């Protein structure tokens, strides 16, 4: 048995754990010296409490919407139901409350004493809004599932090695890519003011969905043999999504193009699944992914339809898509994705050529669907699409 380690013998950590000294010092200075308003509020509060005095100002309903009660609809009390109550459903075209004061609350008297959250930079409603966002939020909550218990893991069967490796490689790809669809909405979630609470709520469900997808594919791979290869092509596509210069552009790249492609991969995954476990996994995931795609299409549609200079807005989106399509294509031409799908489609490594034929058909279907989604959003990429309409397999041979 090893000798017990004594505390006094432990070496100090090389650097402060998690924190750099200057970060703490900056925070201390900001809240002790720079910001004055909170200290004034605290002083008044303490003085009032010490006096034993009540304020009761919160009983005054002037400037509010007190007394108008929301009524539930058949499925409960939804955002749509409460937004029908006058004073609560007016979503501003331009947000100017850069803090957490709830939309519809009595907040105006306190505006000057409230802090500004500098990170709230998406202040235009039409950079975020989609007409289906409340519906999708309700649907997302109702259709959550649990990757631990809703998948019949005990039925997982061992596959021949080539099919198992192909399945695990596909799951490795999906584990790698899924959480960008969590990180991207997370990045914009905290940049979005609270007045756009419906969109923030939907983005939160997308985060949960993607956590679950990453979880279920990681579990499937490790239960079936293990994770296999990560790929540079996947990584560049993911970085291009995170680096998108605006919420709408990133949502186009992630939700409409990227998740549209992943939705196709899920549908293909269900089709070529070699076990009922895999079928169930892909079927559950494709439902979630289709919600994200639907948001992406209608968000872009709203953005372009409300753009003050539509022609310019469309051209900017085209410029972005010209680059974005190519970077996404980098991921979807990686051998670590194309080849395992072909092996599963063909039925084994020896039938990979047959599988590539099937993949060619699926490629065409995907591109058609992508172009249809763009068109439905009022963004016609038919003439400018930089992704080949046909999988260029073997054209140079």
């Amino acid at each position, binding site marked *: 048995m090893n000798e017990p380690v004594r505390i006094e013998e432990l070496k100090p950590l090389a650097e402060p754990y998690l924190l750099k000294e200057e970060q703490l010092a900056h925070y201390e200075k900001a809240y002790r010296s720079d910001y004055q308003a909170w200290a004034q509020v605290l002083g008044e509060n303490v003085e009032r409490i010490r006096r034993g005095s009540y304020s009761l100002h919160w009983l005054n309903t002037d400037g509010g919407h007190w007394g108008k009660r929301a009524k539930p609809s*058949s*499925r409960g009390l939804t955002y749509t139901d409460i937004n029908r109550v006058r004073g609560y459903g007016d979503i501003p075209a331009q947000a100017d409350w850069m803090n957490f004061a709830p939309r519809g609350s009595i907040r105006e008297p306190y505006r000057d004493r409230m802090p500004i959250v500098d990170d709230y930079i998406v202040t235009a409603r039409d950079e975020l809004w989609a007409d*289906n966002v409340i*519906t999708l939020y*309700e*649907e997302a909550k*109702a*259709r*959550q599932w649990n990757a631990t218990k809703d998948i019949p893991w005990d039925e997982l069967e061992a596959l021949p090695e080539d099919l198992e490796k192909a399945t695990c490689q596909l799951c490795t790809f999906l584990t790698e890519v899924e959480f960008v669809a969590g990180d991207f909405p997370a990045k914009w979630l905290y940049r979005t003011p609270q007045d756009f609470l419906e969109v923030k709520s939907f983005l939160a469900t997308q985060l949960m969905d993607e956590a679950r997808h990453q979880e279920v594919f990681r579990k499937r791979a490790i239960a079936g043999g293990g994770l296999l290869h990560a790929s540079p092509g996947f990584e560049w596509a993911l970085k291009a999504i995170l680096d998108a210069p605006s919420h709408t552009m990133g949502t186009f790249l992630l939700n409409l193009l990227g998740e549209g492609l992943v*939705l196709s991969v899920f*549908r*293909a995954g*269900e*089709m070529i*699944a*070699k*076990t*009922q476990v895999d*079928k169930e996994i*892909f*079927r*559950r995931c*494709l*439902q979630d*992914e*289709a*919600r994200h*795609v*639907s948001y992406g*299409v*209608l968000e872009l549609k709203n953005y372009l339809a409300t753009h003050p200079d539509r022609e310019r807005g469309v051209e900017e989106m085209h410029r972005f898509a010209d680059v974005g399509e190519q970077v996404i294509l980098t991921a979807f031409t990686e051998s670590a994705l194309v080849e395992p799908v072909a092996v599963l489609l063909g039925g084994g490594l020896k039938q990979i050529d047959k599988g590539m034929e*099937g993949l060619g*058909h*699926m490629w065409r*279907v995907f591109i058609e*669907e992508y172009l*249809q*989604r763009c068109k*439905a959003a009022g963004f016609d990429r038919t003439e400018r699409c930089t992704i080949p309409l046909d999988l260029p397999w073997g054209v140079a041979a």
Partner: protein
Amino acid sequence: MSAAADTLQTAAVAFPSRAWFQQLADLMNANRTRQEQLGYVDCIAQFTVLDGGADGGPVAYRVTFEEFSAIAVAEFATRELGDADFALEGSAATWREMIENIAANNGRPDLEHSLNRLSHMGTPFKLVAEDPVRADAYFRFNQSLQEFVDASAQFTTLFDH
């Protein structure tokens, strides 16, 4: 299966027919607990048998799903979408093969006979919709739609063809 669903076991039902889809709707509505686990289904789905009509032409069954229920089933002698969000079209032989496979596997089709498996390549089933957002409803509610047709294993189907 719930006691309520047990009581819905009836004599054989002909396919294709409005009564057959109504039977699926009744089974779904009798098992609300399962629907609440799966979540809302809000769409109008059309199931089209391309050669299932009396004259060998198409016959379509439009099922309106709302919340946790199938609230209406209607029959049309056309493949037109009408107010349906999407249609799943296939020949009578394809429908029969799928239904028999579901029955033979006690309500869970084998790997080759799930709705998505049969429709993903556009054949033998084809997904039809007027716009991609409405088509996506087929994917958003796929598990529920799968279990909707899987319930056909709970009664005997008669085939005319």
